[in-house]
């Protein structure tokens, strides 16, 4: 146990997950009539409200400044760089799901973009027709037959199902960005990536605010639909209406 806990981050995450589960176990009963896919709704809504505050006063303003101040080519470079760093693990997950052709493309992308694409700043591989895939360990587990395990909303991290929370812990553990040294460089990169992702979501903010009757439920259901779509690689079987 302590061995695994050596990485302080992982330890903190585990505590968060355990704490969350405990809270969820007690909080969940309050929403007896709730959604079967959202058994921890009481806990989740509390976390969602907390996150709304964090987002309003910290994450969103920073992302807005970044979005305004950064020229498009720089933003594209930042997105491409982190995308490239992720392609190795995406390739591993493609392979773990038995999609060896995709895995080959992922590794080909990594090779091309890391060299011709100058450390991944340019996504040359996409121009050459090697399409980027979206894979992570949560999807791999889903393909292996692990169920959702209920929906959870985490502050800062955002929505994850129970399975995908586990997947996220594994993804972060092998993530080269989290392993970068010195620590100061790692912290800057983690922060930059977070801001970049948040900035990419800015256009969606207004639509969600306007479209949703209940923002919490709107985001939850959108997340669950999107995950299902990712797990089935963009071609999910139709659900009966």
């Amino acid at each position, binding site marked *: 146990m302590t061995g695994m806990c050596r990485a302080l981050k992982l330890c903190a995450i585990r505590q968060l997950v355990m704490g969350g589960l405990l809270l969820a176990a007690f909080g969940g009963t309050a929403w007896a*009539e709730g959604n079967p896919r959202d058994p921890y709704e009481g806990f989740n809504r509390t976390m969602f409200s907390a996150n709304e505050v964090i987002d309003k006063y910290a994450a969103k303003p920073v992302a807005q400044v970044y979005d305004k101040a950064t020229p498009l080519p720089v*933003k594209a470079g930042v997105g491409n760089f982190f995308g490239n760093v992720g392609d190795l693990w995406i390739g591993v997950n493609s392979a773990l799901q038995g999609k060896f052709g995709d895995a080959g493309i992922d590794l080909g992308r990594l090779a091309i973009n890391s060299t011709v694409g100058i450390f991944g700043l340019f996504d040359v591989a996409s121009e050459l027709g090697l399409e980027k895939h979206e894979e992570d360990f949560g999807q791999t587990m889903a393909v292996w037959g692990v169920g959702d395990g209920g929906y959870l909303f985490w502050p800062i991290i955002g929505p994850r199902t129970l399975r995908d929370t586990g997947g996220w812990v594994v993804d972060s553990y092998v993530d080269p960005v989290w392993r970068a040294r010195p620590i100061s460089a790692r912290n800057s990169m983690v922060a930059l990536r977070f801001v970049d992702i948040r900035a990419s979501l800015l*256009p969606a903010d207004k639509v969600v605010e306007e479209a949703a009757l209940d923002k919490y439920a*709107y985001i939850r259901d959108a997340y669950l639909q999107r995950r299902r779509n990712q797990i089935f690689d963009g071609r999910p079987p139709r659900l009966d209406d």
Partner: protein
Amino acid sequence: MMKKLLAFVFAAFLASSVFAQEAPDALIQQVTEEVLDIIRKDKDIQNGNTQKAIDLVEKKVLPHFNFPRMTALAVGKDWRKATGTQQQQLVGEFKTLLVRTYSNALTGYKNQKIVYKPFKMAAGETDVLVRTEVLQPGSKPVQLDYSLEKIEAGWKVYDVTIAGISLVTNYRDQFGQEVRNGGIDGLVASLVAKNKSLESNLAKADKK
């Protein structure tokens, strides 16, 4: 004379039936390109004039949508509990809500390109999925799919899916919650309230 008239009627009949049987993928492409073309030339819409975007959507896009079907899908099993009048109210309010929110999204247009995925359809099929992709510089392509159903009036869109998220069924749980809390009338009332608040935001934005 009679012959000529007959020929004309026949030709008109042929033309109209050809129109009605226009392939669904061709329809999506034609409407998309037409709308994007207008937006590319319209600085007002690009600068965030929502009212103009709404007018564009109402004129060019809405005729190709089947809103009663969309509303029924969004409401789900509660739909049959609604009376005819309630169903009409729901269709009207849901249409207003969708048009408002997604017209607004059009004002964010910045040189995105649409790629139309290869489309195959078996003869006699009446329910299809037309797949497209939105390409934008510096970001991942976004999947944008249209579900169409063939009815008497031709092919009509009944669902739009962005990155796997159905704009229609994403409402189902929220609507179900409203119906549980206040019945069908409760759902109608909260849609009316939502649309009123969007309307007043729009009015405020116009004054600026």
